[in-house]
């Protein structure tokens, strides 16, 4: 709030700020308390860590080879059904492949695609957004135009079409997604840079003659990196869901890879009697994306509560 302008200050009293008589914990301690006290962050991070651990240790933990077919063990229900057994705790699919193992290996696919696509789109989007936010003017106009054009394209359709033409492999899917979902990065980074660009310490750096690159990297980026992290987690979840949709439609990861979306697609024909075939991978997807979203939302709350919405 700006101080009142104009009125004669004769005979008026301006108060000095009220002294903080209660000792406050250090900013680092406060942040730590906020991070761990925040349910979303702890739950999200916890679940995500478990999933990552399972994915990394899949070769060790998985009881079977996920691609191993055993036609004598087809469509066995999970252990909680009367016909299930602990040999295949999550049952088997129509090719006799162990569902638990496929689930574990599927986590690797989702995490890999989500992570790398997020990196690619993050790089593109951040570069565009920072350029637009920092330089303004024509650069901003051009970047905005590019963003609007990208937003006008129906992402799933374009991704499907491109993949259908080029061919679907793991890395094609990753690159197509990465090249398509950078818009949120660009928008958020642009507005973050705009907010920071006119602050005093940037002006000071400019006055000292720092190069533009230096200013962007050492003055501006550290202050907006928290926004970047929040968007990165949310876009990773976004990429995972997109890959699942693409795989479900048959234009994502190729069979027999245990992509969760693909598993749902393969199981949908048997929805009537063996609903767990779609229930389990779907629940896994849901849990993973939920954890990442909770983490992202939580990080946003914790680092900038005023952005909470």
């Amino acid at each position, binding site marked *: 709030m700006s101080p009142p302008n104009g009125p004669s200050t004769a005979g008026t009293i301006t108060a000095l700020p009220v002294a903080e008589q209660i000792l406050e914990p250090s900013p680092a301690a406060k942040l730590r308390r906020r991070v761990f006290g925040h349910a979303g962050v702890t739950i999200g991070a916890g679940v995500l860590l478990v999933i990552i651990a399972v994915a990394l240790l899949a070769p060790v933990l998985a009881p079977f080879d996920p691609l191993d077919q055993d036609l004598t063990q087809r469509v066995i229900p999970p252990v909680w059904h009367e016909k299930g057994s602990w040999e295949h705790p999550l049952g088997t699919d129509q090719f006799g492949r162990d569902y638990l193992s496929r689930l574990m290996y599927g986590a690797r696919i989702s995490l890999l695609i989500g992570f790398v696509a997020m990196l690619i789109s993050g790089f593109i989007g951040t570069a565009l957004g920072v350029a637009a936010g920092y330089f303004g003017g024509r650069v901003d106009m051009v970047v905005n135009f590019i963003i*609007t054009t990208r937003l*006008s394209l129906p992402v799933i359709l374009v991704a499907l079409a491109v993949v259908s033409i080029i061919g679907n492999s793991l890395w094609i899917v990753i690159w197509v997604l990465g090249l398509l979902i950078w818009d949120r990065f660009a928008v958020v980074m642009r507005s973050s840079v705009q907010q920071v660009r006119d602050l005093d310490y940037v002006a000071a750096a400019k006055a000292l003659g720092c190069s533009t690159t230096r200013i962007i990297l050492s003055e501006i980026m550290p202050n907006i990196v928290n926004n970047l992290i929040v968007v990165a987690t949310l876009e990773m979840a976004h990429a995972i869901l997109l890959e699942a949709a693409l795989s*479900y439609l048959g234009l994502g990861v190729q069979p027999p890879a245990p992509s969760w979306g693909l598993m749902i697609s393969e199981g949908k024909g048997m929805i009537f009697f063996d609903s767990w075939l779609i229930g389990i991978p779907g629940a896994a997807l849901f849990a993973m994306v939920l954890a990442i979203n909770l983490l992202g939302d939580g990080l946003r709350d914790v680092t900038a509560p005023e952005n909470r919405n």
Partner: protein
Amino acid sequence: MLQYALKRLAVAILVALTVSMVTFSLLHLTGDPAIALAGESATQEDIENIRRVYGYDRPFLVQYANWLGNALTGDFGRSHYLKTEVADVVFARLPTTMILGASAITFAFILSIPLGVLAAIKPNTIFDRLALTLAVVGQALPSFWFALIMIFWLGIQWRLLPISGTESWQNFIMPAIALGYYVTPAIMRLTRAGMLEVLASDYIRTARAKGIRPGTILFKHALRNAIIPVVALAAVQFGFMLGGSIVIETIFAINGLGFLAWESIQRADLPMMQAIVLVLACFYIVLTYLADMLNAFLDPRIRVG
């Protein structure tokens, strides 16, 4: 206001043109359309023939100019597969997707706006937590999985709703929910945030000091201001839904543009794919333009200036 409208219109047209070029390039440059069309067992001669017949041997820009020129007159070429005019098929199937999209956004509004308002009136209470939980859960649910779950419970187990086709309005209920729930969290959060901000503003305090009734304050004074950004978001989300309808339409066998896109992709029907992407993109551009105009109209500071 007129100036603003014209300026935005110019931008919209420019974006549309760029999108058309991007669409055309993407589908032509990412692979050889002749090869895709010819199929796996084609000989080199077959491929060359195809190239000549369909004009794929001409320079890229010439092809683009031809296509664009034709498209502007409503001629999207002929479908490779169906042997009919692309435009006929696309515009025949468009209304179905429109109905689906409209039902979905209606569902989203019915769910999200009251929730958002309620969460804002009672912040940090159980209602607020409930609304936010719903939002978080909604954003994590894969749409195709949600659709399958609904089919399983509502369609198969309890036999409440039909699970495919488009015979009656009931056919659209599950698809509308499956398509609409994904945008519900964003709209709800924006409504809640907007309402929270507006309710804390000075003019709401003035309204209370004037003795205006709480209901009037909420709807006449607060929501009217808070809804402005929601309108813009809704248009954007509607555009996304049109694009994302492909998944829902294939699951529920709804004969709309999304399903057509799916079929075209499977058949490498290039002209059809191009047309669909362009039509949907143009819809999005028109929608965001209209949303911009509605925004400007709702905000007297822009309308009257």
